[in-house]
């Protein structure tokens, strides 16, 4: 067993004849929080989708804890390895907060239990404590659509805490929030989601957030990795060159 939690090895992805990613390799250790930056269309989301197991690489392999992600179907085994938080659309706005959080259990629950919980939410106390910790315990019965952007992201974080995967992928989790809310959510991701055994991969555009919260930054441009450096070495020039 290697020390690294994630091993991305020579991953290439084609959509038809167009490359979305070309020969990308890197690894992530346990308890790390890694930033990924790059212009729109450079392949960041494609990369995250493949690490999440929802799309398969055209070539190369992705392993989390030595298990080949490309060979797993959505369900229990995949959910134990990797979970995802999106820009703000991860939650189901029509469901109330508690059911959105309990969706983190779907990998372990049977279809029947999931249905029962939709009508009569199980584990109410556990969720209530968790939401209290995240500062939104009073919203537990609200429809998720009525929450603010920052509150919706807290619901997504609570769902991931229930799911408890080894890797969390965050695809621009703060890009629709104002700077203060963005800082709050980054703080929560770092303090709640990153643990000794869990790593987070996060796509970000903001240099300051990258410097403050990530241990490393991977720059992607035109479908390839252009740099992979410790965040101490990151400066504005590197990023403006990346986005040029």
């Amino acid at each position: 067993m290697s020390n690294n939690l994630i091993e991305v090895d020579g991953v290439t992805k084609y959509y038809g004849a167009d490359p979305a990613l070309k020969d990308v390799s890197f690894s992530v250790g346990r308890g790390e929080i890694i930033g990924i930056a790059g212009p729109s269309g450079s392949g960041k989301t494609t990369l995250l989708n493949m690490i999440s197991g929802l799309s398969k690489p055209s070539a190369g392999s992705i392993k989390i804890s030595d298990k080949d992600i490309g060979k797993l179907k959505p369900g229990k085994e995949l959910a134990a390895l990797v979970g995802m938080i999106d820009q703000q659309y991860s939650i189901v706005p029509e469901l109330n907060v508690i059911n959105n959080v309990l969706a983190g259990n779907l990998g372990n629950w049977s279809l029947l239990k999931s249905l029962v919980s939709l009508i009569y939410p199980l584990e109410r106390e556990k969720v209530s404590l968790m939401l209290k910790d995240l500062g939104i315990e009073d919203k537990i019965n609200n429809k998720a659509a009525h929450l603010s952007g920052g509150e919706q992201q807290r619901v997504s974080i609570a769902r991931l805490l229930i799911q408890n995967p080894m890797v969390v992928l965050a695809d621009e989790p703060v890009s629709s929030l104002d700077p203060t809310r963005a800082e709050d959510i980054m703080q929560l991701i770092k303090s709640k989601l990153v643990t000794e055994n869990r790593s987070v991969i996060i796509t970000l555009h903001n240099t300051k957030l990258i410097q403050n919260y990530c241990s490393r930054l991977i720059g992607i441009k035109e479908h390839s990795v252009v740099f992979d450096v410790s965040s101490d070495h990151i400066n504005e020039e590197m990023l403006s060159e990346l986005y040029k």
Partner: protein
Amino acid sequence: MKQISNYVESKKILTLILVAAFIWSVMTIFNTDQALISYDGFSTLLNFLWSIFYLDITPDFLFICFKAVIQTILYAFAGLSLAIIIAIPVGILSSGTYIHNTYINNTFVVVLRFLLAATRSIHELVWALLLVSIIGLSPMVAVLALTIPYVGILGRIFAEQLRDVPEQPIRALLTNGANYPKAVIYGRIPLAMPNIISYIFYRLECGIRSAAIMSFIGIQGIGYQIHLSLLDLKFGQVWTGLICLTIMVIVVDLWSTTVRKALTT
């Protein structure tokens, strides 16, 4: 560029064909030996129009009409409810979002879509006529004649709505441990629900109109009452029946509009 000009050309040709077809069809009207308008009908028409001032509003007849309206509404409710119960599983399976295995999934999708298309391509009135000759003039005919094509219509709409939900929440649920069935119940159904309910209410309006028309073929209901009065040439009663039918449709329309507005805002 060539593609665009081809497209414009073919559009012009299509327009010409349609215009020619229209002119030809109008010509055929004048090409028959029969008179276009039967002038004897005018006196009956005047008689009929005049009868609006002689509405039959005796309590007995009003009660008959009221009963008939309730019957019509009940047929529509029963037919639609049965259609919803069948259309939910059929719609889910034919949406192609429930089964992981591509081959099994495609088989379900193709077979069910064909069945749905077949049931809805025959109008409810035709189903009613067919069913009357099999079952006879029973209320069951009205209910089934609505249910069969409505399963086809609702099943297709349910499938479309379940397929067309935003992808991000579904993607998130799949990475949170849901398989396809669980993503359907936690994601697709809640996301599609407002549109589905709104559409069901629209179908209820249609169903009530259909049930009223269906009763013209002899199944109990407001249409049947109007038909009987018409055969007896009691035009006053016909008007009363028509007004009852109109009020019924307006009331259901208003109710349905209110509910749909509340759902979409």
